[in-house]
């Protein structure tokens, strides 16, 4: 499709780029650690853009000095959920910020079916639009098989 040639969901940072290698992910994590961010790993199989709260894979990791710990958890998550979306998030805890500063997807299912536009007719033949992810047509454990 012309608006999204590769059909990959574009949520979070670097989502328009080719997949980051583990080394590049490590460099991003090191950058976040230098700025004092706390990293956490989250996963989901519901790719809707309004799905903000994914499932946490372990607690957020505070007080880390090196990227190796974060990469270890990320690889464990990849082994456990090879066909889910997995993202790394960096939490900035400075006062008055206290929010997610970085967030990027590190693992995707092999086939991403994409979205369809759903039109709903309301009173007076007006239309309301929303987006529906084809993956959610199947129940949770069967969404991304193989």
């Amino acid at each position, binding site marked *: 499709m012309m608006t999204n040639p590769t059909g990959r969901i574009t949520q979070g940072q670097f989502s328009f780029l080719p997949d980051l290698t583990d080394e590049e992910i490590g460099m991003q994590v090191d950058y976040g650690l230098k700025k004092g961010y706390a990293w956490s790993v989250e996963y989901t199989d519901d790719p809707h853009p309004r799905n903000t709260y994914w499932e946490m894979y372990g607690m957020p990791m505070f007080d880390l*000095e090196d990227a190796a710990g974060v990469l270890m958890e990320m690889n464990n998550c990849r082994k456990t959920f090879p066909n889910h979306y997995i993202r790394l998030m960096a939490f900035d805890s400075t006062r008055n910020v206290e929010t997610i500063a970085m967030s990027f997807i590190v693992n995707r299912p092999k086939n991403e079916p994409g979205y369809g536009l759903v039109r709903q007719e309301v009173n007076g033949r007006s239309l309301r639009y929303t987006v529906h992810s084809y993956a959610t047509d199947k129940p949770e454990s069967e969404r991304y098989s193989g």
Partner: protein
Amino acid sequence: MATSMYSIPGSPMSAPPVAPVAATAAPTSTARTVNAVLAESQVQEVIDELERDLIGLAPVKQRIRDIAALLVIDKLRANLGLQPAAGADKPSLHMCFTGNPGTGKTTVALRMAQILHRLGYVRKGHVVSVTRDDLVGQYIGHTAPKTKEVLKKAMGGVLFIDEAYYLYRPENERDYGQESIEILLQVMENQRDDLVVILAGYKDRMDTFFQSNPGMSSRIAHHIDFPDYQDDELLQIGERMVAGMHYAFGPGMREVLADYLARRKQQPHFANARSVRNALDRARLRQASRLYADGDRELTAEDLTTLLPEDLLASRVFTQSMAS
């Protein structure tokens, strides 16, 4: 998934594939001699600092010199293009320090992180110092996340486990220390380049610990024993401590301190450098009391910083040994 950039279907030109960024490789130089490599790196300063700051501890210094020498030779090999074998380039650096109390195990472990970082063996060079309580949980399922969290915090630096033998309690079968040991062993083996583990404790108990955990013993590459200090070394340590506390020895003080140490060594529970520090702290107390007694005397800087022999002679060590 395609690893190249987007190409709009139907368009004649497609973007060239983007090569992934590689971590900056150390530039190979043309150095061919040891001295040339030493001139380029900080290794010699590290060794010199070690010689200056630590008194005695010959086996420790020798081992660190060996590790530094290996680093220099590895650089020379890299300069000649001799690629290291996959997974075998960095030596295992896990260590175990055994010795009597007060011989400098904790001090050296804290410095080891700095030394290894300056030699380039660890990436960040911080120390995470833990005991059993920080690794072992209180209920089922508590230990693994607790230990993993500590390990993640220590990665890139040194994990220093003091009194490591408390991890293993064979008499209590519900003890979770064994689980913590399993996780430690796994990470020590699989993530050798990310983490250096240093265990410390008394020799006899560490020997028992290693006998019951042969896996742990084989992963520790360097077993270093910290010998007791000699008398002249203890005297030197005393002088260093006094200078560090911004005091000075008065006339005759060195001989009195040497005498004190000789007598104190005969008594039980002698803790090497720690006993010296305690003795000097008590001498400071007596000096304070001595100066306190004279309310109207104007105290100069020299008065306030000098420890006189009577501050040490008042110790029970002298009266007790003279009585026996």
